[in-house]
């Protein structure tokens, strides 16, 4: 039978095409466009070629921000992954309490970034914050606006608090998919708790853990709101991660070109 050829079918793709164009392609291309132009405002642009890229690649500021970013992402992954798995392993498998745990776990994920930032910003304050005040009462020198370590600790703990749930929920889903027979066979084979984890649970969770790592890496790599609200990138530049640096550059200094160039670089 002859296949009917109907080119009008392309029209069906049009809505998606438009949507993606406006939500992703056009903004992205605008950024690319900015990265090869210079401007002094008033919407007047000059061709700059690859100048901004050379500048960005040679700038210490951008490499320092990237370095801080990688350290930050590395640390939160190193904490959230094992912690999430640990939480998932200890959650009840079924029944009423399993549902309670799931809801509690999902709660932090429902809170918007800026609210999380504000919560911790207040929580950590030495004068009125519970955490800051308590630490201060114990004689610990904690002030995230001045201390480099205090600032990093706050930002990391905040991220762990906000996102470990996600890893835990994914790991929990992975654990739930393991058939009972595996645990029964392990009992028959007299495998220790560690061996059950090492040879059954971990291999079966592999897939979801990869997703967890990917999601957490991507999300932490573009983290902006939370550290911006709490530390504003300080003290000094110590918590100025890539996105914060970028916004400082693009909006604070109106250096659209370098900002666009550095975004384009880090995106690749």
């Amino acid at each position: 039978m002859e296949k009917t050829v109907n080119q009008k079918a392309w029209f069906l793709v049009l809505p998606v095409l438009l949507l993606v164009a406006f939500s992703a392609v056009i903004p992205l291309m605008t950024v690319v466009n900015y990265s090869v132009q210079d401007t002094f405002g008033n919407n007047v642009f000059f061709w700059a070629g690859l100048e901004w890229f050379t500048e960005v690649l040679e700038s210490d500021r951008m490499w320092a921000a990237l370095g801080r970013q990688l350290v930050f992402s590395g640390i939160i992954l190193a904490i959230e992954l094992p912690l999430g798995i640990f939480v998932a392993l200890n959650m009840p498998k079924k029944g009423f309490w399993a549902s309670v745990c799931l809801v509690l776990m999902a709660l932090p994920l429902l809170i918007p970034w800026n609210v999380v930032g504000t919560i911790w910003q207040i929580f950590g304050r030495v004068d009125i914050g519970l955490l800051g005040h308590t630490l201060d009462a114990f004689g610990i020198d904690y002030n995230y606006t001045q201390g480099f370590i205090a600032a990093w600790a706050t930002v990391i703990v905040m991220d762990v608090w906000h996102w470990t749930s996600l890893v835990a929920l994914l790991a929990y889903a992975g654990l739930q998919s393991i058939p009972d027979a595996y645990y029964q066979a392990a009992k028959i084979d007299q495998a220790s708790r560690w061996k059950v984890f090492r040879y059954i649970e971990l291999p079966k969770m592999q897939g979801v853990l990869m997703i967890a790592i990917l999601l957490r890496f991507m999300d932490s790599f573009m983290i902006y709101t939370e550290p911006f609200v709490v530390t504003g990138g300080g003290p000094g530049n110590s918590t100025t991660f890539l996105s914060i640096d970028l916004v400082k550059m693009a909006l604070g200094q109106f250096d659209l070109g370098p900002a666009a160039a550095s975004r384009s670089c880090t995106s690749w």
Partner: protein
Amino acid sequence: MAKITLDNLAHSYLANPTSEDDYALKELNHVWNDGEAYALLGASGCGKSTLLNIISGLLKPSRGRILFNDQDVTDAATAERNIAQVFQFPVVYDTMTVRDNLAFPLRNRGRDEAYVAERVQEIARMIGMEAELDRKARGLTADAKQKISLGRGMVRKEVNALLFDEPLTVIDPHMKWELRTQLKSLHHEFGHTMIYVTHDQTEALTFADKVVVMYDGRVVQIGTPQELFETPAHTFVGYFIGSPGMNVIPATIEGNVANVNGSRVPLSQAFGKLDGKVEIGVRPEYATLSASEGLPVKVRRVEDVGRHKIIRAEFFGNDINIIADEGAAIGADMNRVVFDPAHINVYANDWRVEGEAA
């Protein structure tokens, strides 16, 4: 190796069972003799796996006790019971090689490596996987995985009992036969107590010395394949064992004559008054189609299955099956059936009634 005694055992998956129906496993007393091979036969969901999991300690019974060699192990953990169990669906440790999979139970018991290597080699030969020993278990076919599971079950020599929970379901027919033979020879060689759960009667009858038939959470008959065939204790056994199963026909009994819809069927034994639902059961093998004698039947169709013919017929409104020799000529005038009186069993409320010599 051990004798396993079930003492007033019953199990319910509900927290507070009230009626008999709440029990997945109804009260049961039974002794599994040391070194015997049993098949546990029954339809899906009749409590076979429940019973197996109770024996291996994966499940704690609601009531009753389990004894291994007269020692109470009801509260003992699976590890203490020293039992090997193979499940219906393959369980392999994906990230390990086939060799490490087979060695796993031995290493967990702290056996020395020389012994482990020797046993693994032996088992690998038995399941025909010597060539794949160094492959990762991930990515093997389902029946290769199940062979590994079987191998892991058999690798420990000194187990109290070997339990198989429908282990050959996923294995292809040719390999099924071979593995079953292997299991049997293993049994002859080491004399383990073996319990083999299945819903396949051929598997049960070829594997076991004794077949335990379960129905609706209850053991309805324990016997040799011969006993199950000749004198099924329950209509379920008659129907479940045999291909096709026993013909069960409602009747009334007076002395040594069964009355089916006004027609008389002679019996070899005499019975007193029977209450409840009374039926006679006769296997298709003991029914003969005839042109001149017996009671009228309406032949519906004749199926030639190769080694014999199965005649599907209607007998006073009941569907019955009759088996005839492969060579037998079945004419259009053959519309009567004769039952062999010596092989008619009488059932009251589904349970077989023993009569007296007439």
